[in-house]
């Protein structure tokens, strides 16, 4: 079949909401866009383990320790599902990891902020996972089958993350004055970076239009961000802490909360590598990878040896 006809069939499937599967014909740019988006998403899960893992050894109770461990572990699982989904597009996990470690690939800039207090673990669960869920739920219907299936699994597992984060903050807000102050401080530091998680404004987002046309994304950055603000305002009220935005007010006409201007200069700088923890995060990934090299080699060498000895031994079977 010629390319024009293939393209027509592809567009037709997208139109009819028929999922694209790995062996199906797809435009090169679609493949590239998916690889970029899925691998970035995977990297974000993996790098995202670091700021939270920072508090595993200091979690204030045994129950919190166990739930935080389980949560950070889930993120490893999510990274794994996503790397595997991307691998169906003819790129290996090694290549993707290499892109991350060499600084060529991006990951969500939020994870370049530090976790300074226990309340940050609550704020991450509530805001960062909350924002992630808002982004991810529509991706369960993404046009690429393996991506959509990975997202279904991820969303199912993710639902406990936000709840545990909110519960941490709720406990703090119902606690002592210093605990409440800790919660407010965390909200102050995580609020704006969380809003940035939805990406640049629609008019500045280079990929959004094409991604929506291909039904990878279903909602624009600004639509999701607005939805997030609306939901969070009410959740912050229940906690009794204040969102650090003097311009945040209900707009009767639009039926949404108006909110202040995002500092995009900060956003682009963190992306460029100037965030408070960019270097540490990448360094931590590089170290794990390099220190793990001999382990991976040993496992492969052992597997090779076993394979050979099985071949030698097989005639008797």
């Amino acid at each position, binding site marked *: 079949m010629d390319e024009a006809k293939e393209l027509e069939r592809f567009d037709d499937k997208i139109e009819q909401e028929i999922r694209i*599967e790995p062996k199906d*014909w797809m435009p090169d740019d679609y493949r590239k866009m998916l690889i970029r988006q899925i691998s970035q998403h995977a990297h974000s899960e993996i790098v995202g383990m670091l700021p939270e893992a920072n508090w595993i050894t200091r979690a204030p109770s045994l129950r919190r320790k166990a739930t935080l461990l389980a949560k950070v572990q889930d993120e490893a699982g999510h990274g*794994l599902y996503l790397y*595997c989904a991307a691998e169906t597009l003819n790129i290996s996990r090694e290549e993707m990891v290499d892109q991350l470690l060499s600084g060529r690939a991006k990951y969500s800039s939020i994870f370049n902020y530090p976790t300074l207090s226990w309340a940050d673990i609550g704020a991450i669960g509530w805001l960062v996972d909350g924002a992630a869920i808002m982004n991810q739920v529509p991706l369960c219907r993404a046009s690429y089958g393996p991506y959509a299936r990975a997202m279904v699994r991820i969303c199912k*597992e993710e639902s406990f993350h936000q709840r545990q984060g909110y519960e941490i903050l709720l406990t703090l807000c119902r606690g002592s004055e210093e605990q409440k102050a800790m919660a407010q401080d965390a909200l102050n530091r995580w609020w704006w970076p969380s809003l940035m998680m939805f990406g640049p404004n629609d008019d500045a987002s280079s990929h959004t239009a094409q991604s929506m046309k291909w039904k990878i994304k279903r909602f624009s950055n600004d639509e999701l961000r607005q939805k997030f603000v609306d939901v969070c305002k009410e959740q912050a009220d229940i906690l009794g802490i204040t969102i650090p935005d003097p311009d945040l007010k209900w707009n009767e006409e639009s039926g949404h909360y108006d909110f202040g201007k995002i500092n995009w200069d900060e956003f682009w700088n963190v992306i460029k590598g100037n965030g408070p923890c960019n270097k540490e995060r990448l360094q931590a990934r590089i170290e794990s990878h390099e220190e793990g090299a001999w382990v991976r080699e040993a*496992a*492969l060498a052992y597997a090779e040896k076993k*394979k050979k000895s099985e071949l030698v031994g097989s005639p008797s079977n």
Partner: protein
Amino acid sequence: MSNQSEPLWEVFIRSKQGLDHKHVGSLHAADAKMAIENARDVYTRRMEGVSIWVVESKYIHATNPDETESLFDPANDKVYRHPTFYDLPDELKYM
């Protein structure tokens, strides 16, 4: 460092006794034993399974999407293969 890496495996899980194994995803492992252990650790953390199959991805053979029409469309008009095709009186029981 060698440029070899752990091969990719496909994971199939029986969610409970009596059901078929179903494809749930994939993972990397150096050998089959490790693949099974990894599958247990990655894919059954929430009581998702009672039995695991793994197969190295390169051993899976699949139909070619270009042949989808010729392979699967011909079944469309063979409705007589389904029990509802046959008109029988309502009084008839146990059939």
